[in-house]
């Protein structure tokens, strides 16, 4: 699906967000990215969803270098990638149905898009998507009247309508409470699994990553720190990954085997050596 070769992103102010990342992601694979805040995970996701151009390196999507795509091809490629952001990034003044149907904007003609704002086109699709995320009754609610968790579900429903091949979720649960966090991560995982979508997720919580994903990529200072199966991720690796960052605290909980999110969490080998 994705092939990343030596990606590097330097912002206008000279700060290096992504330093040197090379990685291959297969079709249908599920990956979790973990690492301290400021490690460059969000920037990496913006490169992966084709809204940010890397300063150096190549990003290959299904065998094509994305830097060589024409305008039309770029739009087309974007419709195949669905993004769920940390903040919901919805337009609060629009009704839920329009925010959900915005997932169709990559396919719709301008005329259809405009008409839909007056009279929602395929509102039934939006209704079905909302039903799958558990809030079918909110179809015609004003989006800014919903709670944070409900808005995150609307964002997921939009991605369902978009029906992309890849789902990028950038810290989708950082603004919701722990029980809802598990629900949303599980929901995204299961929905992606059903329709054989590739799923890439940035997670603040090491615990959620280790318990829900078969492949864990640790990012630190804009570089890949490790890329392993969860049972190979040792306490030492994690301690290194987060060394000097406040997220250290969650490692202590994991060390004690007391997960914040309950469920089947086992103590990790290799702590305190």
């Amino acid at each position, binding site marked *: 699906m994705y092939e990343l070769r030596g990606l590097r992103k330097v912002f206008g*102010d000279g700060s290096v967000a992504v330093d040197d990342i090379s990685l291959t992601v297969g079709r249908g694979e599920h990956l979790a990215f973990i690492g301290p805040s400021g490690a460059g995970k969000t920037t990496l996701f913006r490169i992966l969803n084709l*809204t940010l151009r890397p300063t150096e390196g190549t990003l290959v999507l299904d065998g094509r270098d994305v830097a060589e795509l024409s305008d039309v091809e770029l739009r087309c490629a974007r*419709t195949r990638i669905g993004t769920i952001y940390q903040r919901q990034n919805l337009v609060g003044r629009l009704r839920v149905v329009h925010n959900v149907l915005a997932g169709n904007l990559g396919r719709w003609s301008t005329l259809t898009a405009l008409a839909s704002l007056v009279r929602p086109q395929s509102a039934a699709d939006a209704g079905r998507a909302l039903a799958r995320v558990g809030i079918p009754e909110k179809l015609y609610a004003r989006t800014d009247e919903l709670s944070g968790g409900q808005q995150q579900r609307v964002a997921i429903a939009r991605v369902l309508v978009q029906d992309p091949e890849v789902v990028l979720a950038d810290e989708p649960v950082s603004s919701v409470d722990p029980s809802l966090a598990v629900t949303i991560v599980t929901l995204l995982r299961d929905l992606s699994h059903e329709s054989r979508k590739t799923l890439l997720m940035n997670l603040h919580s090491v615990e959620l990553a280790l318990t829900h994903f078969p492949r864990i990529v640790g990012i630190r200072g804009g570089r890949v720190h490790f890329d392993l199966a969860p049972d190979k991720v040792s306490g030492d690796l994690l301690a290194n990954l987060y060394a000097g960052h406040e997220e250290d605290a969650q490692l202590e909980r994991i060390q004690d085997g007391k997960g914040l999110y309950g469920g089947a969490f086992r103590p990790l080998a290799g702590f305190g050596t």
Partner: protein
Amino acid sequence: MARASTAAPSGRSPASAHKSAFPRIFTAVFAVSVALSLRAAQVDPRLLVERAALANVAKFVRDMFPPQLSREFLGLMLRPTLETVQVSVMGTAIAILIGVPLALTATSSLTWRGVLHERTSRVGRWALGFVPYILSRAMLSVFRSIPEFVWAFMFVRAVGLGPFPGVLAIGVAYGGMLGKVYSEILDGVNPQPLETLQAAGASRLGVVVYGLVPQALPNVIAYTLYRWECAIRASAILGFVGAGGLGQQLELSMRMFQFDEVLTLLAILFALVATIDFISGRIRAWIA
């Protein structure tokens, strides 16, 4: 996120030294300018309480009562009142016609900056974006920096006395204000939903109608209504230079020392502004 945290340590320390001095310098400059203005503008509250001044004010107030409420006078004022409302409505309509297109070209996110222009070439951004952007901003600032009173004066010379020069004056001056504020509202929307739409493959127009417009529209409508309210007052003032309406009657009555009529006219003006305030309040509550 990554960007902010890596940029902070290198960028902030030298700037903070400048920041601490600024409020003090600003306060000093402000105090000096107030002190100088006090002299230059000949502010002297004693003049207000002098015997002659008080006597004049008393006479002015005494002559206002009872207000002129004769059927004949009120009947005569019906037309000017309507005219004032019509001038404000037409003036605001023309202001919207002038303001909207100029606002669109004066909005940086629509012409040369941000997510809509990721693939525009450098030359294209400059020639098709930045140049029209600067030109329309300059035009808007000329339109609004000349007071509507002066515009009316010029239009009276051009098209003669009557409500039409008033309409044109409000249209041009308010067009400048509306355009400027519209462009600021459009540039001030949250850019993240725009990037989200772009990431989902939306076309530029799709980003505009699903992201930009819904975020900006309520503020645009609210500000336009507020300007309409101001236009009522302006259209009354413009009567002083011959642009018809209540202002012209006000000027006549004042010149004839008919202060009872003045009071009635001010009351009518107050009622008009209050009514429009009420209507626009309802509309704003409905769209918010």
